[in-house]
């Protein structure tokens, strides 16, 4: 059922300080098996949210009249994965959201096979209806749990050149997709020097544990850190010349990325390998993964 509501300034008067701007309209809301999904529009900007009218964060947004532009820093930062492999032939993306990243990659690399895994069928429906998500002939959408997909895919030896992890629920990444075992299963699905790109947060007690867990499985990685933190690494660890090659690839990719509203001026300075977490933090495993509890605690 579609509803159109206009949020009026009265919300603010009622003390809803985090309420969205008065111009924001609710275009759609639905209760899926897993969450509430809201689609809002504010001028030219259309967003998907899991909480509304007091959002904790926006899951996905696009500009209606400039749909190629990536609005969020984190989506731009995830494209830095292309600096490590500027022409991936097979990509796995876990977590669909509004389909922003799959759409961008599909447009940039029409011949690339993209496998997209999303748990919630309703998210896929909303992406197609409200975010103009149109999978082409080389994109396959799988509606299932990302962990189960990854584990089962190993039998086919898919050799993904790039894996992008962007699966979130209303709080954070599901706990069974943060463990060492999960990341080992992801690595098993990757080509020998395939690229891993993971969207994470950086401001909670989970940061150290999560960082150490990724380092255990993937070795040293680039840690792109703003409000979100993007882990950018390789199966088998970064190569010594990865930074130099990233600079070369950045120059080649610049026209493509500038269309998306990003580029090397923003992305290259973020490619840091500095270990700013406690490397002795307890590793997250299938036996020990209180990730959402840790994520609710402030970082020491």
């Amino acid at each position, binding site marked *: 059922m579609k509803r159109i509501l206009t949020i009026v300034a009265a919300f603010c008067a009622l003390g809803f300080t985090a309420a969205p701007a008065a111009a924001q309209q609710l275009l759609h809301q639905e209760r899926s*098996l*897993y969450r509430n999904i809201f689609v809002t529009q504010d001028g030219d900007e259309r967003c998907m949210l899991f909480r509304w009218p007091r959002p904790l964060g926006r899951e996905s947004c696009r500009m209606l009249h400039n749909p190629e532009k990536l609005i969020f820093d984190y989506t731009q930062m995830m494209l830095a994965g292309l600096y490590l492999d500027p022409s991936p032939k097979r990509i796995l993306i876990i977590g669909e959201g509004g389909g922003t990243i799959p759409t961008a990659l599909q447009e940039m690399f029409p011949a690339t096979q993209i496998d997209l895994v999303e*748990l919630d069928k309703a998210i896929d429906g909303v992406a197609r209806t409200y975010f103009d998500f149109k999978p082409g002939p080389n994109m396959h959408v799988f509606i*299932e*749990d*990302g*962990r*189960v997909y990854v*584990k*089962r895919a190993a039998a086919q030896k898919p050799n993904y050149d790039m894996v992008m992890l962007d699966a979130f629920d209303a709080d954070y990444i*599901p*706990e*069974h997709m943060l*463990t060492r*075992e*999960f990341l080992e299963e992801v690595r098993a699905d990757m080509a020998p020097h395939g690229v891993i790109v993971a969207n994470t947060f950086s401001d909670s007690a989970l940061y150290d544990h999560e960082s150490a867990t990724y380092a255990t499985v993937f070795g040293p990685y680039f840690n792109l850190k703003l409000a979100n933190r993007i882990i950018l690494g390789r199966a088998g660890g970064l190569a010594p010349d990865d930074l130099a090659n990233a600079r070369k690839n950045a120059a080649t990719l610049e026209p493509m990325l500038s269309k998306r509203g990003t580029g090397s001026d923003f992305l290259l300075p973020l490619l840091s390998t500095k270990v700013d977490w406690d490397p002795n933090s307890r590793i997250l*495993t*299938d*036996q*020990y*993964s*209180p990730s959402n*509890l*840790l994520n609710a605690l402030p970082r020491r």
Partner: protein
Amino acid sequence: MARKQSLWCYTIAGWSGFYVMLVELLSGRLIAPSFGSSIYVWGSVIFVFMLGLAIGYLFGGIFSRYSPSLLRLCGILVAAAIATLPTLFFGTQFLDFMFDKITDPRFGSLLTCLGLFLVPTIFAGMVSPYAIRILVKNRESSGHDAGYLYFISTIGSSLGTLLTAFYLVLLFEVNTILLAAIGISVAVGGLGALANYRKV
């Protein structure tokens, strides 16, 4: 003496309630790596635990008709604990086996849950009706005794849920928590049996 026996009945029922919810919460964690944590996985978990408890209530009631004793009640508690041991030692292998055999995560998680958790839950379900049989001394107080036992048992369950979800998983590995819970069950059952051995 009857009071001491009652105290043991309440202790065993309270711990059994705690234990069953602890295992139920952790079972979701054990199954997630193979079948995810989707709504149908939790549906499978809850179905199996409800089914196990239902069968346990039935069996516990029937079993209580034949020479009921506190010693046997202790035995039921220990049996529930021992029936959980295979999950600890062979859980991963069983999960991998089911993952390979069944591709549909609904039935994969359902059959895995049945295989790992139905038997311990049946034993746990037997505790309350059996304990009520020992507690009830006359018809007039039977409702009161049953109500009080369910109160203790369900308080145990609620604490088991909260402590496991809020604290235990933050501090310990899943198998460590399971092993400790099994150990406590055996200890409670063993101590109860020792303390009441002469009254059998």
